[in-house]
């Protein structure tokens, strides 16, 4: 049984390592205010696209950058610079999740997740 005991200890050690490392490295969900107080820490910020402002995208200057405004769940509005080309349907999104850091007054996102309207919410059925 001694070998198995050794293995058991190894397993527990690996498990602890995983938990510690992942807790150290994972980002948390936050709002803009929290992200501002910790610039250079990466956060996931959930919010809604501000549709009153047009999305700025100059592909000839930089095809991988666009900017828009977003309000987080607490209602704070900030300008976002996304380091990717704009996702195809961003104007239709119900909710977006940005992954990035706050720099000055802008949130620099390197990734974005979008939640589009649920398929149960759209229009009336077709009558032939």
């Amino acid at each position, binding site marked *: 049984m001694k070998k198995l005991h050794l293995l058991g200890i190894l397993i527990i050690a690996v498990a602890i390592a995983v938990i510690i490392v992942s807790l150290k490295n994972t980002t*948390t969900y936050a709002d803009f205010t929290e992200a501002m107080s910790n610039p250079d820490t990466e956060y996931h910020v959930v919010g809604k696209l501000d549709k009153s402002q047009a999305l700025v*995208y100059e*592909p000839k200057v930089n095809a991988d950058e666009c900017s828009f405004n977003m309000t987080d769940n607490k209602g704070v509005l900030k300008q976002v610079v996304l380091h990717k080309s704009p996702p195809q349907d961003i104007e239709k999104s119900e909710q977006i999740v940005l992954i990035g850091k706050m720099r000055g007054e802008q949130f620099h996102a390197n990734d974005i997740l979008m939640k589009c309207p649920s398929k149960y919410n759209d229009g009336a059925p077709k009558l032939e």
Partner: protein
Amino acid sequence: MNEINYIGERVWAGQVGNAFIVISFVAALLAFFSFYAAENNKDYLKLARTAFSIHSISVLGIAATLFFMLFNHYFEYQYVYQHSSRSMDMKYILSCFWEGQEGSFLLWTFWNVVLAFILQRRLKDGEWEASVMCVFALVQVFLASMLLGTYILDHKLGSNPFLLLREHEQFSKLPMLSIPNYAEKLNGRGLNPLLMNYWMTIHPPTLFLGFSSTFIPFAFAIAGLWKRKYTQWQETALPWTYFGILILGVGILMGGAWAYEALSFGGFWAWDPVENSSLVPWLVLVAAGHTMIINKNNGGSLFTTHFLAIGSFLLVLYSTFLTRSGVLGNASVHAFTDLGMTGQLVIYVLTFILISVALLLEDDLHRASYVVVSVLLLFMAGIFGHKRVILFFWLGASTIITIVCYYRFFPKQKEEEKLFSREFWIFLGSLVLLMASLIITYFTSIPVLNKLFGVEYAPPKPGVYNTWMIPFAILLSLLMAGALFLKYKKTEAKKFLRRMMYAFLLALLFGASCSIPLYFIGDGGFSGEKLGYAGLLIAAFFAIFSNIDYVLTVMKGKISKSGAAIAHLGFALILLGALVSTSKKAVISRDTSGKKVSSLGEEFDAKESILLTQGDTLPMGPYLVTYTKKSREGINVYFNVDYLKINKDNKPEYEFTLVPRIQDNPIMGQAAEPDTRHYLNRDIYTHITHADLNVDTAHIKDKAFGDAKNYIGHVGDTLYSSNALIVIDSLRTNIGQKEYEKNDSLLIVTAVLRAIDAQSRTYKAYPKYIIKNSVVIPEEDLIEELGLKFVFWKIDPEEGHVEITMSEKASNAKDFIVMKAFIFPYINVLWLGCIIMAIGTFIAIMERIRKFKLQSK
């Protein structure tokens, strides 16, 4: 709402379907109790078998009814309405069947019935029939309940696929339902266009058959614990287990192939929760299958076998919970809709854990008390709340009980396994698989843990999974390389190591030389990450060469006996293919500014896309590309991109055209679908990241100039038009001595503008600022080739700046696309590995069945 007399509704169909559902549920319940009794009293077997047959037939009936409704367009039923339409091709009818939640549960239940039918005939009159079928019946009770859709107290039990549209809470308020004969006018919403491909027809049924098959080793393990016959079931369960490994593995790989072919995240595996939660049960099933072999041979790893066999099925239930309960909401782009079945699914998982632990207890009294206390805790949680605390307490207590039972009651091996024995290495392998599964499960379950602990950790990026999985992949490869050369019980270390040396040296040679390019990628040098890749390269090659060696030398080339070696070879190829194509994935659309080419876990990964204006040719990687045209077919917009290469005569030569597309999906929004060029040693994979879907070209023919834009600047400044940049080179005063001499109140300043287009061609324009008798008369100038017009209309001598307006012809606004292109090197190694692994597993299954038949003669 007034009582409307609806006409044309075929209510009978729903009633038939519901009758089948109720019968299947009741029959399953009856079968459960009868088989339970039959374990001790054979008289009940007949009743049990009859109940099981009735259950099976009713399940077939449910499926047939639903299929009938879909085929005949009974849109008054919500499931038919939501997932199909009249205009849909009939070849997609099967995809509609399992597109929705209820349909996929039905598919699972159906497969269970099919497998149980075959299994039961094998077990008939044997000693395992009653117990195994009893477990099966219980599983079916739970699955059937997922289709009931009835209400118990306040809680909804399951979700019924046969609800009429007007009975469904989401659709009951639709205005057209107030028309009595709505049924004949109705058309369904149709199948999601993204799912209208052949993958949707083959991937779900294969995957669900795989899930379904995990219940067989589970049922045997439970039966074994129940009967306290811990070592007699492995032999029978083995071929079924490997069948599950084969089918589930193929199902998962199909998902990867589908993603690679049709989705645009740029790969075949994204460590998405849906993917992970089907991979994990497979890994555990593989582990279980291997410890079963040890078990069968010399009775070792007994507890581990039971643990893994039960664990695999529990993980399938857990994965169902994860993907259908909406708990992953923010964590993934998949649309997880909560059908209100979360509580139910949680209870199912917990119930089976309860049964497993209870059966471990040796004493009947202990068992009864454990069950009673657990049920009491459940009620307490329901009534008084504090669900989390009670859950943790119960899980903790159950774990302790399991450990105690293992030490006190569970039969253990007397002899310790030697280090250089096949059993020990297989056991190690299963342990590695289990650990990898736990880590993946942990990361995937972070949203669940968030809910449980009230924290808000974000789930990790795919790169994290890759990093963590590399050491496990290395270990697995090393074990796969050596295990078959080890004998049971004991192998002489020196002989073994000498045997392995050739394969190892070859692997070192190959692996090391392949790793050398890694040194030059990115920031140069060998980081920890790169050492990991190099290590896996060598380990995977080692496993490949070693297993080829085994087939050739030990098995003397007899393929029919080399199932295991071939399967291991396949798996090693998969690891190799995945490693090489992902880590060396070159983004060729990238602006080559010397940045890191690795695509794993990079932060601000800018400059990956290329902008292609219609008609212009740009260099991209080893090619010259031209975006030629855009066309629309239904909801798909296709973008043609030509690829050329410079040939020996230094002239561009046409190679091929790729047509990535964007689907204007009415349900899911715009979905980019890639087009890939397949070569033997690499794939060129492209997809659109941004494009204008408007195919209307009328406005391009407009010859007039658009609105003028004003620019304030100095000499040396640059203006931008849509097709060029324009530099204010200089200002010249008083060009034309003659005019000046005629009238000295004439002032002419000419702005010299130099325009440079995308092909670096230069054009000049000379708009003039003229003051004649104190009146400003600017003289415009045009650059015809670029469709630009300039008017120099103001000078401010104090500020030292000038104001020039520029207008463009409307036809300048050329259409453009933004595209990403990747080269996946050697990705065919991955697909080859999948096929080889499947073949190897199949051969192994056939061999085992053959041996089994010989023995029983």
